[in-house]
């Protein structure tokens, strides 16, 4: 094993923005980041010890105290919960003769519940970290899974279908540079189109960002290109932690070069020479494949200095998150890269003028950026052959729960939810009860709403959302109260704690949902007040959507939180 000194050596000339990778190196090697390590990091990077401690305790994959050699974190969010995550946690604990969050006496194992791991199509899923080992693993698990074989489990294959972004993706194979081709769109942009030309093509598409906030991509790029500050940055948001979402994982594992070329085109268009891909720590395989692809492309001169002999240079760096849904929010993500706690910033100012390191920055979702090479190569009009006037291009959706073929599907927006479930997913298992549309931050739909066309505008019209493209399907066996409890725990676990409405509201909301089977008088009204307060008064998008599903459930099911049929 590497010593602390060996780990610190390459960081000698680095500063605070190297904190996250350094903490990862130490956590991975020793299973925790103790006072001695913090003391030395403080000297090396010149960051106050208290700040480092604050950062460590912000992330759920870092620990200030020693942990077991192997930590097994089982996702207990709605889909994994329904698939028996609770039994898995109990089964593993039983095998090991321990309770949740407890370490075996020999210090070897610990088992704990965790939030969505993006393997919802193989529920229940677990994240396995072993210190001393370079890589984590994410794998499907069952209660009988032999803990001693866990590290070897990391094979899974998602159902995938799609012709454009997902072309050739089968959930297993990773596209090499030779198969992908030598960044033809980038070549065309650099030699023919020019930066304004690239933005012009993107503008023609009316492309809307795929990360959840549904912002027009070309507008963002133009504003950043025009902004005064230098240097400029591109950040590819690969934090994908929204419950039920795994489309970016499938893209990254299958077509890393498509994403890299998209990042490069964005950087070229806005005038950036440095890009970051911020990827959640729970995606070891995608991280590895992207890194290999970066190395491969750099070696071939498609990234790095003077690309295609031009004066455009680009370095792409991967940054791994460490277990915080919050860090998918763009400004919290900047804070994370800068080596601070992942607290979101107050907007305005917006990232287009004051983003990463307070410089003009474009943040785009993985899927958004992966549409760019096709747009540049074939022109903006090409993209509009799919979808509707307002929801152009193809769109990826992640489907999990009670369908015969959960997976990631590339659809042409405008098809109805019913068609999607029937044509792509092999239909619903049993009788459909509800669909949670858009993730934990989304809303519930009922069977009478299945004909809604899947577009940004039609979903908005019924006060729902595409969100991150997560579609969670529940049949009559699912217990709505149980789903809500799990969502309540998710938000309580993920609230950053910065602003009062969400810091307090996610806790109070969870408490009421926990007792929903035997509610207290006034609980419906309490949930409503908490929900509306979080929605309207919270500082960032997390709190503003933390009650979305709950409020929609209260509307849909008047029987929820009732005692003997009487509302409380």
């Amino acid at each position, binding site marked *: 094993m590497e010593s602390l000194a060996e780990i610190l050596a390459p960081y000698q000339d680095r500063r605070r923005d190297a904190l996250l990778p350094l903490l990862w190196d130490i956590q991975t090697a020793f299973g925790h980041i103790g006072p001695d390590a913090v003391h030395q990091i403080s000297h090396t990077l010149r960051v106050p010890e*208290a700040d480092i401690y604050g950062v460590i305790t912000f992330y759920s994959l870092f620990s200030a105290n020693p942990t077991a050699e192997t930590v097994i974190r089982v996702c207990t969010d709605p889909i994994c919960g329904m698939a028996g995550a609770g039994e898995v946690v109990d089964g593993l604990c039983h095998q090991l003769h321990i309770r949740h969050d407890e370490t075996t006496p020999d210090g070897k194992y610990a088992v704990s519940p965790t939030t969505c791991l993006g393997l919802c199509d193989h529920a229940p899923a677990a994240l396995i970290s072993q210190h001393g080992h370079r890589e984590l693993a994410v794998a499907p698990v069952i209660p009988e899974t032999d803990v001693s074989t866990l590290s070897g489990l990391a094979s899974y294959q998602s159902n995938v279908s799609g012709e454009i972004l997902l072309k050739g993706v089968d959930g297993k194979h990773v596209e090499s540079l030779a198969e992908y081709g030598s960044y033809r769109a980038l070549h065309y942009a650099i030699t023919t189109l020019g930066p304004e030309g690239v933005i012009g093509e993107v503008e023609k598409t009316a492309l809307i960002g795929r990360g959840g906030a549904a912002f027009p991509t070309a507008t963002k790029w133009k504003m950043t290109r025009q902004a005064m500050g230098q240097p400029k940055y591109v950040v590819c948001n690969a934090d994908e932690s929204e419950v039920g979402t795994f489309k970016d994982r499938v893209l990254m594992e299958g077509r890393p070069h498509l994403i890299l070329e998209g990042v490069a085109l964005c950087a070229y268009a806005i005038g950036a020479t440095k890009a970051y891909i911020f990827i959640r720590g729970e995606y070891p395989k995608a991280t590895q494949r992207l890194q290999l692809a970066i190395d491969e492309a750099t070696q071939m001169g498609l990234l790095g200095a003077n690309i295609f002999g031009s004066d455009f240079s680009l370095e792409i760096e991967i940054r791994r998150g460490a277990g915080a849904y919050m860090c998918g929010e763009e400004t919290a993500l900047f804070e994370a890269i800068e080596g601070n706690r992942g607290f979101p910033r107050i907007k305005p100012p917006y990232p287009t003028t004051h983003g990463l390191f307070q410089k003009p920055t474009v943040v785009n979702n993985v899927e958004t950026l992966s549409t760019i090479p096709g747009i540049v190569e074939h022109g903006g009009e090409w993209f509009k052959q799919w979808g509707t006037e307002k929801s152009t291009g193809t769109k990826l959706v992640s489907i999990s729960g009670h369908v015969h073929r959960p997976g990631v599907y590339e659809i042409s927006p405008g098809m109805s939810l019913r068609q999607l479930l029937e044509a792509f997913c092999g239909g619903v298992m049993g009788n459909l009860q509800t669909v949670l549309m858009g993730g934990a931050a989304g809303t519930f739909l009922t069977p009478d709403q299945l004909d809604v066309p899947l577009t940004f505008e039609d979903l908005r019209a019924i006060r729902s959302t595409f969100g991150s493209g997560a579609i969670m399907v529940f049949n009559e066996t699912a217990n709505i109260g149980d789903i809500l409890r799990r969502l309540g725990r998710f938000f309580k676990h993920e609230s950053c*704690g910065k*602003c009062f409405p969400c810091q307090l509201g996610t806790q109070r909301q969870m408490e009421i949902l926990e007792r929903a089977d035997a509610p207290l008088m006034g609980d419906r009204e309490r949930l409503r007040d908490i929900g509306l307060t979080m929605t309207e008064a919270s500082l960032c998008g997390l709190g503003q959507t933390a009650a979305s599903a709950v409020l929609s459930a209260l509307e849909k099911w008047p029987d929820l939180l009732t005692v003997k049929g009487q509302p409380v």
Partner: protein
Amino acid sequence: MSDRVTLTIDGQEITVPAGTTLLEAAAQLDIEVPVICYHDATTSNGLCRVCVVDVNNGRLLQAACVTACANGGKVETRNERVERSRRTILEMLNSAVDLHQAPAIQTLMTDYNADPTRFPDAERREHALLDDNPFYMRDYSQCVLCWRCVQVCAEDAQYTFALTFGGRGFDTHIATAFDIPMPESPCVFCGQCVGVCPTGALKPKIQWGMEQGMTPDEIRQSTRRPRRRREETEEG
């Protein structure tokens, strides 16, 4: 772009320099917007959200302490939505934190008809009283997480960086690195944190002793002990 903006606040028109916050503009009209985390001397972070106001009947309410006035804006500082948010925030805060030494927040509770018993069976943020230095006591059960102490210890004043946050969400708390006692931290006992704390969470030891009914002599005794203890450990 003009460097002055005109807007209406509760029906009254006002023109202010661009960049003026809604809180400042309202104050000029003698309209009082409640605040908890805001303090003249510290960076505003928009944490407590009791200062939220309704701007143009937008989907979201805006925190007046950090939102700049916009031309043509129609601002309501107190309507039904605003009241619900303020009341609920106060009720939730009271259900989590010991506010008995936060008179300003108590007054707000009354102003907004906040029910102190709104959230029965609610988990409270309880922390043991920390008595680890000769100068001040720390009772984080009374901490509302306004961040002021952390900020004055850092870039807002002292550049000492003794304080940070531990945990996240509801479980966030003010901490030193690894929760070491203040004398082992970089703290220089400037007392600025105590000066800005809006509740009884940070309190001069003398004041605390008097509240406990101690005599000045007893207080002096008690303030001396920790220092001696520290010297002993350094020798050993």
